[in-house]
């Protein structure tokens, strides 16, 4: 079964739970009980004492990995280029943010690091320091065996200058330590019934984010060699196991066809209520595994 997907869950799924009804222990248990093998986290959310957790927390972390058999997959981080009002981070400072998170991710056993760069425009062009800052830490990433992957996330589609820029960077540097992370929210093709994002209603992006980018999953084919990790973003799976927003029946066969064998890491982002995500993630895993089995049953 070398060519099967790997199933994971991001603790981000439990955003409405974490800190008020769930601690990291329960998060591990909920993930492990789905049969997933990987856990994804947000460094600044889930690591107590970030970026330098104390020994007690580290013992707890490795104890939980050990008990549940989960492996750390991707750690999400931020490069807060607008940390100061009126003065953006320099390249050196950006590289320092990346170094901080590469170091922590490595310490915790992660293989992927997703940095979210600050942007400079309404269409989310990242601060141009991203390229030289990443270039400065490629050697470190190589040494730590971590792939840095920027997230292709709605409202940025696949065919977009930002994505082209990332691919040009990979080609120019020849690095194996920088690749793309796809957030499946870009495939959303039906409107959200509940709006959970921060973007105000009057904003030009609002309709796009509500209705979905409707990126054609076939577009994955063109960027296949650059995809390192997939966040299986979703918003609601109904009582008939039907995803109301993401066309998994179109996405999964393409992922099979391009030979993706990495993680599908659940990212639930639905109604803002506690105790909803736990079962939603379980539903998604049934749905995805069922679709994968159907794909595998068809002779290639």
């Amino acid at each position, binding site marked *: 079964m070398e060519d099967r997907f790997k199933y994971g869950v991001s603790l981000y799924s439990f955003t409405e739970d974490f800190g008020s009804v*769930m601690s990291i222990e329960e998060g591990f248990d909920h993930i492990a009980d789905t049969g997933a093998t990987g856990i994804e986290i947000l460094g600044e959310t889930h690591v107590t004492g970030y970026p330098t957790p104390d020994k007690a927390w580290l013992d707890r972390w490795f104890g939980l990995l050990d008990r549940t058999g989960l492996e750390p997959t991707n750690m999400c981080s931020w490069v807060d280029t607008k940390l100061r009002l009126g003065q953006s981070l320099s390249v050196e400072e950006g590289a320092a943010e990346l170094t901080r998170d590469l170091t922590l991710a490595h310490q915790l056993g992660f293989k992927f690091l997703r940095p979210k760069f600050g942007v400079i425009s309404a269409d989310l062009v990242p601060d141009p320091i991203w390229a030289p800052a990443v270039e400065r830490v490629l050697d470190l990433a190589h040494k730590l065996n971590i792939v840095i992957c920027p997230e292709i996330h709605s409202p940025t589609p696949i065919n977009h200058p930002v994505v082209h820029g990332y691919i040009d960077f990979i080609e120019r540097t020849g690095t194996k330590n920088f690749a793309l992370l796809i957030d499946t929210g870009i495939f959303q093709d039906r409107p959200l019934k509940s709006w959970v994002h921060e973007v105000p209603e009057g904003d030009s992006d609002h309709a796009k984010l509500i209705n979905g980018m409707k990126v054609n999953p076939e577009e994955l084919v063109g960027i296949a060699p650059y995809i390192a990790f997939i966040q299986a973003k979703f918003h609601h799976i109904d009582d008939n196991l039907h995803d109301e927003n993401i066309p998994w029946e179109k996405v999964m066969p393409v992922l099979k066809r391009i030979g993706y064998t990495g993680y599908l890491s659940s990212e639930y982002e639905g109604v803002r209520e506690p*105790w909803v995500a736990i*079962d939603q993630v379980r539903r998604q895993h*049934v749905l995805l*595994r069922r679709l994968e089995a159907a794909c595998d049953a068809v002779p290639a």
Partner: protein
Amino acid sequence: MYEFQLIQSTGFRNHGPEGARDGVEVRLRLPNYRGMRLSLLDGIDVTLDGEFFSHEVTSLILGGTVYDLAAMRDATTVRWAMGEHASVLVPKPGGLLPGIHHVKVAALVRSPYFPPHLQPLPVHGERLATIVLP
């Protein structure tokens, strides 16, 4: 920490060796506001997708030990503590298919300080829950 609902999302799973499932586990929070000795629990009725399993045929898995109704009634020194999960084991050969299922439970709790005609009182839970793995 418990999920708020009596029937927990996590821990709803098939029981027994893969490929030869012999039952279903339904994980519960403590069906009481105080920890209690197991002999105060008079078994748990479970209904899975409309199929009823009486408290006389289900068992409870607590702390790694399986208690059938007779064993539960004898367990005057075993505590189901606040904060501790337990699972009802429903004897259902083959288990359930992965997917969303309708689950109902009635935990029959005896509270000696309640009038005798109200013993045991059922503590009810009902929800849709998901079996992930075959």
